[in-house]
Each structure stands twice: as C-alpha cells, then as structure tokens.
C-alpha cells in the first residue's frame, strides 16, 4: 500500500527562524507535489517536483526531491506570520491512474 508520511504534524515556530518539513513516501514515483491550505479554504499548488534532485524555490519556501531516498523536504527560511497554514505533500500513484496520495499535512503556526 502506498503511504505518504509527513513530519512534523504540527509546527510552531518564531518569526525569523528556519525549519524543514519532511515528506517520506513508499512508492518509486519520481513526481512529488506540495500544497498549501489556509483555514476553511481549498488547496493551492506550491511546487511540482518532477525528477530526482529537483529543487524549486518561491520566496521563503524551497522544496527538494530525492527519489532514491523517497524523501522530499520543504524548507522555510526566516519564517513570517503569513506562512502560517497547513502544508501537504502528495505523490502520484505510478500505476498510471493519475491518482494522488496525500500526506497527513503539517500545520504550521508562525508566532510573531
């Protein structure tokens, strides 16, 4: 059974600090996706990582993918309050069905 695990599940951090969210998965997929969700809202696409070694950055967020380790990281640099949200990673079901398997989410709270 394909599993996607995120840690930590909850993260409270001070503004200005750095931190990393981890996403481990059990399939051999080489595609991984990161999403952001604000309370009461839908999911918004942040990053699409399509190959081993892929690294993408947007503002204070940087995502990377290591398909050999089956690990993706979402690194937060100098956190600000506006980054408070829940972050999900997701992996393709490589059976070619275009099904996505989501992690449990990491709820991030940045304290001013």
């Amino acid at each position, binding site marked *: 059974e394909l599993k996607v695990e995120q840690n930590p599940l909850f993260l409270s951090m001070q503004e200005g600090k750095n931190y990393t969210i981890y996403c481990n998965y059990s399939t051999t997929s080489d595609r991984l*996706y990161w999403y952001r969700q604000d309370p009461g*809202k*839908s999911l918004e*696409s942040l990053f699409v990582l399509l190959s081993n070694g892929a690294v993408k950055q947007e503002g204070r967020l940087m995502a990377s993918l290591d398909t050999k380790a089956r690990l993706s990281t979402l690194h937060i640099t100098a956190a600000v309050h506006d980054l408070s949200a829940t972050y999900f990673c997701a992996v393709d079901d490589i059976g070619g069905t275009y099904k*996505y398997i*989501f992690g449990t989410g990491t709820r991030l709270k940045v304290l001013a």
Partner: protein
Amino acid sequence: DVKVTQSSRYLVKRTGEKVFLECVQDMDHENMFWYRQDPGLGLRLIYFSYDVKMKEKGDIPEGYSVSREKKERFSLILESASTNQTSMYLCTSTSSYEQYFGPGTRLTVT
C-alpha cells in the same frame, strides 16, 4: 487562467435528502476527482473519472455515486445524506503534471 469551480461553497441539507455537488473545469482535462477532507483524516478519495461516462471507485465510495456526462463536468451524488457525510468536499482536475483544486464545498448534514 486555469479554473475549477464548484457549485456551492456552503451547503446545509437534512438527513435523507439527495444531494448533488457539481464540479466544472475549463481546461479540457480528462481526469477529475472527488475528495473529502476531515480533521485528522486528511484527504480521502471518493471517486474519480478518466473520461466521459467513465468512473472508478476511490478509497471511500460507500454512500456516494458520480456522474460524468460531459467532459467538463463531474458530479458527486449523495443518494441519501447522512450526518457522517458532513465534510469539506474538494473536486480536482488533473493534467499530466499537475492537479488543480476547486474552492471546496463545505456540506453540513443535519
């Protein structure tokens, strides 16, 4: 601009009612999905569709059905709504490389 729309943002229905949730995409995608999201349970796949008139069960199809008569529209049907179907429902449409989410429908069954 890519768009997935859902018919209602908020919906309140009574137990036993038949409920229709509509999802429309304007990207000519073949693949569309319905998820529900509940606290502590993450996103769970209800049904998905690869093409018009085609449907596949996801992980939790019980109590739901779907309809896809046109490529752009994927409907989720609750045949007889129950209180345990109170949830946030999310529709998505996918290309080869990306999944686009609708705004979600928060359904409350009383």
